[in-house]
């Protein structure tokens, strides 16, 4: 079944500005904002109807009206457009370079009595990605946090230009290694939408299987790491073991622990082997046996809950304004999951719930992950039961010579919704592609969530968000 494509319309400047006003008013949600020479594009969704569109505006004199002027979530994407494409968003409130690091960088000043600054990074103390955090603190309390990202900027958008579909798929799978399945899936769906390729039903279902395994592995890792940042080592060890078991099963079934390059345009690289179903059912049974005890320990350890409850609260209003995806949005009342809205196969034929809570603290983000683990376990079982037979891959080629084609896809990774927009030219070469990680609209919220917390709770807040550096920096 071919993926549903989003319509794209080239609009006049007035209509572009009107969309910015509607974003500011909360009538639209921003799903992506990117540029190419002479055009700026934005993907939006109507709040009421969930209708998705891509708007494009011609940039006469390399300029276009800033969306960030009215709608703050657009500021960082517009700073990136200035850096990468050279277009000038007119009226952009913050014109400091973002992904291009040249010369000095002026952090915004914080004023008040007894304030001091703590610079952290780009090389952090743990085994994590590089980024810089500039804290302004009063004693132990964080008054202000300013992030500076872009350290892992690899020039993905420009590497995509002119790439073959195989090479572009390999790049997409390495935008954020923890979400390699989700990124490969988003890329493949967008490409298949562009080329109007229908992939075999078995491939559709197997892709969902891989995506749910990836979600499980990451959620296990995250919960363990959050507990570790509260100095609670036993749950870190136990959840680390669960994660390792998922990765080993993935390796045994698909030949790669992270399942990198397994989702390819046209289907999958390989089929589920003969003993795959048995291995997966054993894994699910093992997790179901071990998990309740761990959840019980998390929920009944006062010293641990003392660290997570009420820490790093993200308000529902901000989650809504930034259209924050994944567990960050759903822990702050935003009921959105790309598997449901706009939705894609095979999730329309699977039973699952989308957990949502309002509290918005670290504890809420842990609980959303726990609930999502339970849902993913059930989804894997349903997929195994209903898995259609047949082939797992179809050749990727343009059936008739139709010139330039475009495709858009929105896929729910473990961290939230990933957007891909692709334009394919002759001989299936990528003319332009942009993949937007959920972190673009989550990172800025971390700055808000840590305000008023103590510096020592920052790792806990940061881990509960677990935004991607590489996915954001592109």
């Amino acid at each position, binding site marked *: 079944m071919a993926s549903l494509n989003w319509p794209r319309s080239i609009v006049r400047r007035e209509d572009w500005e009107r969309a910015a006003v509607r974003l500011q008013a909360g009538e639209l949600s921003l799903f992506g904002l990117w540029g190419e020479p002479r055009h700026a594009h934005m993907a939006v969704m109507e709040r009421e109807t969930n209708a998705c569109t891509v708007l494009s505006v011609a940039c006469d004199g390399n300029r276009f009206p800033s969306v960030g002027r009215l709608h703050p979530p657009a500021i960082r994407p517009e700073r990136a457009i200035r850096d990468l494409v050279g277009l000038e968003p007119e009226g952009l409130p913050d014109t400091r370079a973002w992904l291009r*690091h040249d010369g000095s960088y002026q952090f915004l000043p914080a004023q008040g009595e007894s304030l001091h600054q703590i610079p952290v990074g*780009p*090389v952090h*103390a*743990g*085994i*994590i*990605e*590089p980024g810089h955090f500039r804290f302004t603190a009063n004693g132990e309390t964080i008054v202000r946090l300013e992030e500076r990202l*872009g*350290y*892992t*900027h*690899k*020039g*993905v958008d*420009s*590497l995509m230009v002119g790439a073959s579909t195989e*090479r572009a798929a*390999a*790049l997409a799978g*390495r*935008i*954020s*290694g*923890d979400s*390699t399945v989700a990124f490969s899936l988003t890329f493949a769906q967008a490409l298949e939408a562009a080329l109007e390729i229908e992939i075999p039903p078995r491939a559709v279902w197997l892709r969902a299987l891989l995506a749910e395994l990836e979600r499980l592995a990451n959620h296990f*890792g995250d919960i363990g790491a959050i507990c570790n940042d509260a100095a609670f080592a*036993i749950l870190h*060890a*136990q959840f*680390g*073991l669960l*994660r*390792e078991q998922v*990765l080993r099963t993935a*390796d045994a079934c698909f030949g790669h*622990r*992270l399942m*990198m390059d397994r989702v390819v345009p046209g289907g999958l690289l390989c089929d589920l082997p003969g003993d795959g179903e048995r291995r997966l059912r054993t894994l699910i049974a093992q997790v179901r046996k071990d998990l309740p*005890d*761990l959840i*019980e*320990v998390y929920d*009944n*350890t006062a010293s641990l809950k003392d660290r997570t409850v009420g820490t790093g609260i993200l308000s529902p209003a901000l989650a809504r304004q930034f259209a924050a995806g994944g567990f960050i949005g759903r822990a702050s009342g935003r009921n959105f999951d790309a598997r449901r809205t706009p939705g894609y196969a095979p999730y329309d034929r699977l039973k699952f719930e989308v957990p949502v809570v309002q509290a918005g603290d670290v504890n809420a983000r842990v609980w959303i992950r726990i609930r999502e683990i339970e849902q993913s376990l059930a989804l894997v079982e349903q997929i195994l039961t209903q898995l259609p037979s047949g082939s797992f891959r179809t050749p990727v080629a343009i059936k008739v010579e139709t010139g330039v084609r475009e495709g858009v896809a929105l896929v729910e990774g473990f961290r939230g919704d990933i957007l891909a927009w692709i334009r394919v030219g002759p001989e299936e070469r990528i003319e332009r592609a942009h993949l937007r990680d959920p972190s673009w609209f989550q990172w800025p919220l971390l700055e808000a969530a840590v305000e008023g917390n103590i510096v020592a709770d920052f790792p806990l807040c940061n881990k509960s968000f677990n935004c*991607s*550096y*590489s996915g954001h920096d592109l």
Partner: protein
Amino acid sequence: MRRLLFKSFVQGLLTEPAPAIDDAALAELAARVNQASHKRLGRALSIREVDAGSCNGCELEIHALGNVLYDLERFGLRFVASPRHADVLLVTGPVTVNMREALERTYLATPDPKWVIAAGDCARDGGVFAGSHACVGGVSRVLPVDLHIRGCPPSPVVLLKGLLALLESVAA
């Protein structure tokens, strides 16, 4: 909690036996490791991990080295928070232009004797990002590299084999 602790107690040790040391890594290291430093370090090495622009895939697998099945610390290998405490820099990623200076400064902050391991295909030659205007491409373009560990990403077992080879060469 009590039930979990009891279960952990009765099920015994989950940690798996050490893998065989990687011969290719030993050969690469033989040419580089300075004899004079052997005695100074004994059988313990402190490692500072530096992500020089990886996709985070390598970090996930390096992280896994610390889980109960691989238990890196039993070999005397441990990750430290500062390059000033480190003997080894474990570097990943295609070295982005934006990380180059931070990587160089991390190296300069690491006391001698020190070794550099480039982990993953990106750290080897830029991997899929080779040729990008935003990447220097390969750790050896910036720092002297003592050992390359291949893989995209290298699995924990592959990483462990490389690290044990370094330990063997240094402490021989």
